[in-house]
Structure formats: C-alpha cells, structure tokens
C-alpha cells in the first residue's frame, strides 16, 4: 500500500537498526516509476515541514532530473521550500555529472553560497566521495546532534551505469547504517540492468515497490508500454513487498492512475477479484480455461486407471475398452490374457503364443480366414 510505505519512511529507523530503504522499480512497459517517486517525495517533505516525521531534513541526489524541477514540484504541491528553517538540500548530479561543462573555468564541486539549497557534484563515478558528500551535507542540514535526515536518489539506474553494482550496493549499505539517516528511497529501471544487479539492490532494500503494467503484453516482451493497450497508458499495478523486522514478508497490490495533478492509488478493482496475481498470468485466449462447478464435480468422479480407489472393492484395472460394470462380470480372461489377482494388485500375464511351437516354415497367418 502506498500509504503504508510512506508511513514506514516517515517513522524512520529505530535506534541501532538499519534505516528503512525503499526501491521503486519500473520498466518501459509501465514507465511511471518517477510519478511514484515524486508522490513519495512530496508526502515525506510535507511531513518533514510539519514536524511529523523522524527525519528533520531531506537530501535529494538528483541524477536524472534537474534540481529546479524538484523545487517546482514541491512548490506546486504546496510545500514551503524557502522556509527559514532549512530542511532540504539538493545535490545536483544532473547538470554536469562528469565535469564537461565550463572546462575553461575548471571548477570543482561547489556549494554556491548564495543558493542555500543546491550543491553541484561533478564526479558522479566516484561513489565513495558521493557517500561522504551526502553525509557531510546532511549533517550540515540537520546539525551534529541526534537529528536525522532522509535521502532520496532519483535514479539508482544512473548510479549503476556510472559505477559497479558492488559500489552502489555498498553505498546503500553505508547509508542504511549511518546513525543520522532516517530512511532512503530511490528509483530503479529494472529493464536497464541484469537480473543480478536488480536483485542486489532489492536485497539491500527493506521495501520493493514494483510499477507494473495493467495488462501484461501477450508475448511477454518488455515492449514500450506493453502492447500500448489503452489502460496501460494511464493505469497500472503497484505491487509492494515489505520485509518486516521479524522476517515476515508482506505483499500488497494496488492500482494506480496517473493524472496531470499526480498519481493516485486505489485498491484493486473488484472485477479482477481474488485471482489478481493469477489473472495477470493467464493468457487472453478464445476458449475457457476455467472449470464450472458441474465440471469440477464430474472431474472428481472420473475413475482413473491404475489408481487404488480405496473403497474396499477389488481393484479393477480399467483398460478403456469397456465400462467398469462390464469388466466386473467378466469371468474368463480375454485374449491377450490379463489376469488380476485381487487383493494383491498383481498382474499375471499369459501369452497365447507361448503355447505354440515355433515353426519357421509356417506362416502364422495361414489359419486366418479372411
């Protein structure tokens, strides 16, 4: 549930425990991961400003969107970005991640003193330095005391592109273990990486939220927006897997809809009903794959051959050529000679041709009268 995810992030980390970490996972089949990321960012920010969350500040590591777009997002959502008490800082890894711009000036990473909210970061391949910069800036945001801040990474995929899986995993682990970090959330495009890399990020997270298409494309390929069905263009499924402290895993599923004002979540509609997960896997075909009640009853009544009926009667092996009643009345063995020893389930087989002497001159078919 999106609400419970936001609550977990708001409540933050217990003393001595790792910070809750959310990975939002999407793909081109349903590319709305950023909508979820912005939604959570706005929710958490409002709670920080209102003083209702454990964290007192938020660090946004902006890799795939410009810092100004985040400031606009928060302003249009009614969150006070310019309040006197500083609560937000944006690390700009978007504008010049590799230091290509303004080479003439040869400026390094700078914190513009005139702009309290923004710092630019130009060596995005150096993940260790990124970790220390995040910690220093975060400490500067909330102070040295027991106050905590949260970290939002808008593209774990960009980080994985610039550095190795191990570096990113250790960055996440180090952030989770930091005593001043309350919670972490980031966005990952699952179709851009090997399964191994996605699995590593999922393992380091306590919550994984998948943004999936409403209808999976029939051929199973990750084509852009599935098969571009109408519903996939604005709706989808939001599946969340949470790891609890006691080891239990909780899985929930919701529907989401994207609108100009943002994203909204709703329980799965009753049309899909109980078989939500299964329904997505059953292909849409012309014939009925389900059983009706009568069909189910009939199926349970079918006597399977070679199966012990367990009703105390002698075992009748149904050879398919006659009904069960007829074979009960049969006294003599039929040609081909099967005999059943009732009670022990033994088959004694007498071959007719064993009685005859083999004579190579004779054609065994001579006595046929056709």
């Amino acid at each position, binding site marked *: 549930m999106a609400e419970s995810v936001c609550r977990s992030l708001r409540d933050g980390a217990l003393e001595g425990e790792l910070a809750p970490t959310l990975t939002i996972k999407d793909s081109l089949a349903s590319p709305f991961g950023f909508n979820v990321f*912005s939604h959570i960012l706005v929710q958490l920010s409002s709670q920080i400003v209102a003083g209702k969350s454990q964290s007192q500040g938020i660090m946004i590591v902006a890799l795939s969107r410009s810092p100004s777009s985040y400031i606009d997002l928060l302003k249009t959502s009614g969150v006070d970005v310019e309040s006197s008490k500083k609560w937000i800082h944006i690390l700009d890894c978007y*504008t*010049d991640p590799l230091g*290509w711009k303004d*080479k003439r000036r040869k400026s390094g990473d700078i914190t513009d003193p005139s702009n309290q909210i923004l710092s630019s970061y130009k060596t995005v391949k150096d993940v260790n330095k990124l970790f220390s910069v995040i910690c220093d800036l975060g400490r500067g945001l909330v102070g040295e005391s027991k106050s905590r801040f949260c970290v939002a990474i808008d593209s774990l995929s960009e980080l994985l592109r610039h550095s190795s899986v191990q570096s990113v995993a250790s960055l996440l682990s180090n952030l989770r273990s930091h005593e001043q970090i309350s919670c972490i959330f980031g966005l990952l495009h699952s179709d851009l990486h090997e399964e191994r890399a996605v699995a590593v990020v999922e393992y380091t997270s306590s919550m994984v939220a998948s943004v999936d298409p409403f209808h999976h494309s029939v051929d199973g390929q990750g084509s852009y*927006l599935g098969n*571009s069905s109408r519903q996939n263009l604005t709706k989808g499924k939001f599946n969340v897997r949470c790891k609890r402290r006691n080891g239990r895993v909780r899985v929930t599923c919701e529907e989401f809809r994207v609108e100009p004002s943002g994203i909204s979540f709703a329980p799965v509609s009753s049309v899909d009903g109980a078989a939500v997960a299964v329904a997505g896997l059953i292909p849409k075909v012309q014939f009925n794959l389900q059983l009706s009640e009568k069909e189910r009853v009939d199926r349970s009544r079918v006597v399977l051959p070679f199966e012990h009926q367990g009703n105390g009667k002698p075992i009748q092996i149904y050879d398919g050529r006659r009904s069960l009643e007829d074979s009960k009345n049969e006294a003599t063995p039929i040609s081909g000679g099967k005999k059943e020893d009732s009670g022990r389930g033994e088959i004694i087989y007498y071959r007719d041709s064993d009685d005859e002497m083999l004579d190579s001159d004779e054609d065994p078919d001579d006595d046929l009268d056709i």
Partner: protein
Amino acid sequence: MEQQGLDLMDQALGFHSNKAQQQPWPLSGRFVLVEDCVDTSGAFVLHHILKRSFTSHPSSAVIFLAFANPINHYDRVLRKLGCNLASQRDTGRFFFLDMLMLQCPVEGEPNHDGLAAVFEKIERVISELSPENKKFVTVIIDDISCLELAANGSSNDAIDFLHYCYTLTSENDYALVALNHRDIYSDGERSTFKLEIEYLADILVKVDPLATGLAKDVHGQVMVLNKETQKQHGISSIKVHNFHFKIKENNTEYFYAGSRT
C-alpha cells in the same frame, strides 16, 4: 508564421492547428527520438523536423550534428523539400557540425575528451548565437549509432553525451532530435543502450515497414508516442498516434491506415 495545413506528423508531434494554442516551437524543452530499421529509414522524419524548424518561427536556429552524411546530402534533400540550407547558414540560423571524421581517443589515453570536446563545441556555438536566434534552438543528431561508433563503441560515453545534450532541453528549453537504428540493438546485451535512450525521450517516433510487406503506395507505418510530461510529477498522459506514410519526390504524405484506395 507560414500558413500551411498541418499533416498527421505535425499533429502527432504537438503542433496544433489552432494558432492561439500553438506555442512558437512546440518541441521546445523536449527530446524527440526517431527509431527506424534497415527495412524502413526514418531519416525523412529528421528532414521534416528540420524544415519545420525553419518555417515555424523566424528566430529559430538549428545545430546539426552530422555523423552519418555530409552536408551536400542534406542540402539536396532539403532543396527538394523547398528549403535552402545555404541561405539559412548565411543568416546564422543553421550550424552544420561535420562529425564524419570524428574519432574519439581510444580508452587508455588520459581522458575520454572526444565527446566532451564535441559538447564544448555545441556550447560555444550556442554562446555565439545572436540573441534573437537563441530563443528556439533545435539540436539534431544524425545519428546515434554513428555517434556510438565515433566513441569507439562505448555506449556509456554515447549516453553521457546524450545526457548532456538533454540537459540543454531542461535548462534552456531547447529541442533535441535524434535518430537511432533500432535493429542494431535488438539483441539482449545491446538492447540496454536503446532502452536507456527511450527512457530519456519525451516523444518517440517509431518507423516500421508495413507488417504485410512491401507496397507501392505505402512505404511504411509510423507510431508516435507523445509523453505529456509534467516535468515535476512525471508522465501525466501518453498520446499514441498511428499512421502510414509515403515518401514522394518533394514531400512525404501521411495518412491513416486504410484511407488510401
């Protein structure tokens, strides 16, 4: 503004027929990715946008990064479409950066300065633009596969370069248009490169051959995916347009499937 009817491609790209609604350059701040394949070339879409950028607004400028063809090729093609590139160049509205001979330094050398130097060149051209031409700048890259070749096959460097070009759209509201050959990246490992760029794109124009095979009157089909993005919140809605096209001597015709007898 030139009075001309809008065809299906224009409408799909976001040009509105109602002049009051129309922005001076609807592609401002957007990245248009054109994907084609061997069977059907998508270069005609680039030519269409190139011509449109000159006719739509008097103060627009185009920076053309050519990795695939020399200027004479584009000159001939655009002349057939009724556009004189030489005169646009003379008036400071068309900048042709010939990248055909570009070969980036090999890995192991001190720096991967190759594409960084190209980006610096683009920045220099932009800074030297006259103020009135600076308002609606379009950067066109033909094409991404050749760009990757120039980067010695380093798809990471190519994506870094595209990212930097993309920052031009968000910071200065410029338009970015690029052509990519989809079928080069159709197998497992290489497909990530294509997907990375598709994530960046605001408008995706997919050019395919007809599913039914070659035809005399229809040269292929186009699907345009236009992400209406509230840049802050993310994608708010996606409009899909499907139509066919026929490339003629002096223009390209666009029409709905089945509307041609």
